[in-house]
């Protein structure tokens, strides 16, 4: 039973974004066995040692633990006191007594002593006011109906009722029924206790819903956010967190491989020369040092209203991975073009979002002229482009029937290592209407649609791999 509680707790932890592996779950079981359940604070410390493996995780763990193990403070469902109940006048009874009179008449207790003996188990428990026992029953009932399956908020009433059924609601109702019929004053106090129990059950269901549905909800939400079109994404408040999470994953992935790639291949010439000293036995191996590449990155973003959302996320994403990316120069254009690198340098890592907003508002406009943009970029950066340069252009290539000036893109592609194009429109729309995308395609090493975060992540990942 204890193990099941732990399993559920771990499920809740995963919902709170703490990665717990199966091996760690097993550790937790062992740890709990050693420490025991008597000392709550110590159990918390001990489980935290086994399950939360970084400082942020530990903070989340503590919150989650407190939420989860709250029901050890037993719910107050006992009747106020037997004295009060006895003092109640028997006349103040429910109208429902009339219905029950026929059905329960025979079984109804005639005397106080008798009815107490004949009462339901749950009823006795409530009358005794044994809160610890009641809490245990509730936990057992919660497991029996498996509250972890609750996914939609409207199911809460249903689950609460099922829980009470598992605790023996039927027998209790029967008892209240009979007591009422017999005009026993205890009916009233039992009824109050039953209501309190119902409230406690609902509260328990609520809590479980928050704990468990959070897991599915969060996963669901992230999946939705990754797939939804970038244009609608700004409405999600926590999208920034998701972008950071995705970026962190990429950074740790690519930061690591960089270390491995430090040593190059065997330098046969130097190894042979060195071996002469040892009777031509190659005892010392020499390696070619891998020449550090210094890639340059140029990002040109269309910020006209139709594409601004995509530009926004590309810029956010690139700043989030700036740990592993080389120096980036960024440009923005709509009706006019300009360099915005300094906006980001001035803002620093904390002000990225503000910097992006500033870029978007200052360069916003309509009537994009791609030809003009390419010409501007060529003028500005011709001398800086070399075989290490990657030029990324984000835009829909809808040129308002102006000349495409693909020869400028050809020059840029010729001079640099590669041109990559991100288009917020799907491939099937490239070339439709005023889109000049097909004219640019031959000069792009890769062109891909970027309509949602998943596609954007895939692009940035490929870019990082390529940069090494």
């Amino acid at each position, binding site marked *: 039973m204890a193990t099941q509680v732990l399993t559920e707790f771990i499920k809740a932890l995963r919902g709170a974004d703490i990665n717990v*592996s199966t091996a760690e779950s097993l*550790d937790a079981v062992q*740890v709990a066995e050693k420490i025991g359940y008597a000392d709550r*604070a*110590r159990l918390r410390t*001990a489980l935290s*040692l*086994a399950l939360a*493996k970084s400082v942020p995780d530990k903070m989340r763990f503590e919150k989650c633990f407190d939420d989860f193990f709250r029901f050890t403070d037993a719910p107050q469902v006992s009747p106020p006191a037997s004295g009060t109940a006895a003092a109640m006048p028997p006349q103040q009874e429910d109208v429902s007594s009339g219905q029950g009179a026929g059905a329960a008449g025979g079984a109804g207790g005639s005397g106080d002593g008798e009815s107490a003996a004949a009462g339901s188990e749950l009823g006795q428990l409530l009358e005794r006011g044994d809160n610890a026992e009641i809490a245990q029953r509730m936990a057992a009932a919660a497991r029996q109906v498996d509250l972890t399956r609750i996914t939609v908020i409207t199911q809460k009433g249903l689950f609460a009722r099922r829980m009470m059924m598992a605790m023996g609601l039927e027998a209790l109702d029967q008892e209240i029924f009979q007591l009422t019929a017999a005009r026993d004053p205890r009916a009233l106090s039992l009824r109050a206790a039953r209501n309190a129990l119902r409230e406690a059950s609902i509260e328990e269901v609520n809590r479980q819903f928050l704990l468990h549905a959070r897991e599915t909800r969060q996963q669901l939400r992230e999946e939705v956010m990754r797939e939804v079109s970038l244009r609608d994404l700004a409405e999600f408040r926590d999208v920034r967190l998701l972008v950071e999470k995705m970026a962190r994953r990429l950074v740790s992935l690519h930061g690591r491989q960089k*270390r491995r790639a430090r040593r190059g291949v065997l330098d046969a010439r130097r190894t042979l020369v060195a071996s002469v000293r040892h009777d031509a036995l190659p005892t010392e191996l020499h390696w070619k040092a891998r020449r550090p590449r210094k890639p340059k990155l140029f990002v040109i973003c269309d910020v006209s209203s139709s594409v601004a959302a995509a530009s926004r996320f590309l810029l956010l994403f690139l700043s989030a991975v700036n740990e592993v990316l080389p120096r980036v120069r960024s440009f923005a254009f709509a009706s006019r073009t300009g360099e915005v690198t300094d906006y980001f340098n001035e803002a620093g890592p904390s002000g990225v979002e503000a910097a992006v907003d500033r870029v978007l508002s200052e360069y916003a406009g309509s009537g994009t002229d791609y030809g003009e943009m390419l010409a501007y970029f060529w003028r500005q950066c011709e001398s800086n482009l070399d075989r290490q340069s990657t030029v990324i252009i984000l835009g829909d290539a809808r040129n308002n029937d102006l000349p495409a000036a693909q020869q400028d893109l050809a020059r840029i592609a010729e001079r640099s290592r590669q041109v990559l194009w991100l288009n917020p429109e799907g491939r099937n729309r490239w070339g439709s209407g005023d889109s000049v995308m097909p004219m640019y395609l031959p000069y792009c090493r890769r062109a891909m649609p970027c309509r949602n975060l998943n596609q954007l992540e895939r692009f940035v990942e490929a870019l990082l791999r390529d940069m090494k």
Partner: protein
Amino acid sequence: MKTRIASVDEVRESFKGQGYICNDEIATAVFLAAQLRKPILVEGPPGVGKTELAKASAAFLEAPLIRLQCYEGLDEAKALYEWKYGKQLLYTQLLKERLGDLLGDAVTLEECMARLSGFGDAFYAETFLEPRPLLQALRSEEAPVLLIDEIDKADQEFEAFLLELLSDYQISIPELGTVTARTEPLVFLTSNNTRELSDALKRRCLHLYIPFPDMRLEQQIIAARVPEVAEGLRKQLTLFVSRLRDMDLKKQPAISETIDWARALVLMHADVLSPATVDATLRLLLKHEEDMVTVRGEIHRLLKD
């Protein structure tokens, strides 16, 4: 090694007896690690007593302490084992004639090879093996406490190499096969968090984070380590240090620095913290010139009650 530990409090009391004052979390971690034979990964800012914890644990468990200091470029040859090349060479030279005798009547190359292989891998036997800390720990007769210090300084590859040791207490050596621990060591890994450790490593360990102690705990530590300091001064100096830690400094003073400072104050016969004494001894707490400048201007404010 002591195998029976009654409770978390026993650990705590023993540590206290050694002058290592700790909170419940640290004691629980050591208790669990010793009971479950799981490695502990200890993280925290420099100078909070991570290495000290391993030493105290070794003393508590009456076990020998084997220490491996990590650094960039640390490899198996330095951490696990190495062949004694010099000895191998010397032996081959000395045995040259004997070898000549043995091979004397063998005519063909095949025959010589067959004879040689008949001797087995004499030169790759245990006699020529130089055990380094990790192998020492595995081959120790008595279960030791193995301290792998500052694992974050070692390379990623080394971390991966440790995984087998941490989960199964065994290590594979190509020439010898798998070496399994005679007695399972209690492993402490410490990290200053200069880089993120891999999930695989974290998964195999209990994770203990030691933050800077709160004022009450730090007072107890000072009382245990520098008993000469009077109570009033003790309170004053821990308050001062905890305020320093709230400031935006390049390097925050650690416990070890508070202890040094307390010792210095005792030597100077200071009974109370005055701006002048603080100013004169500040260098013991702060290790950067910029920090000194920042704090000097604030001494009066920091000393206020």
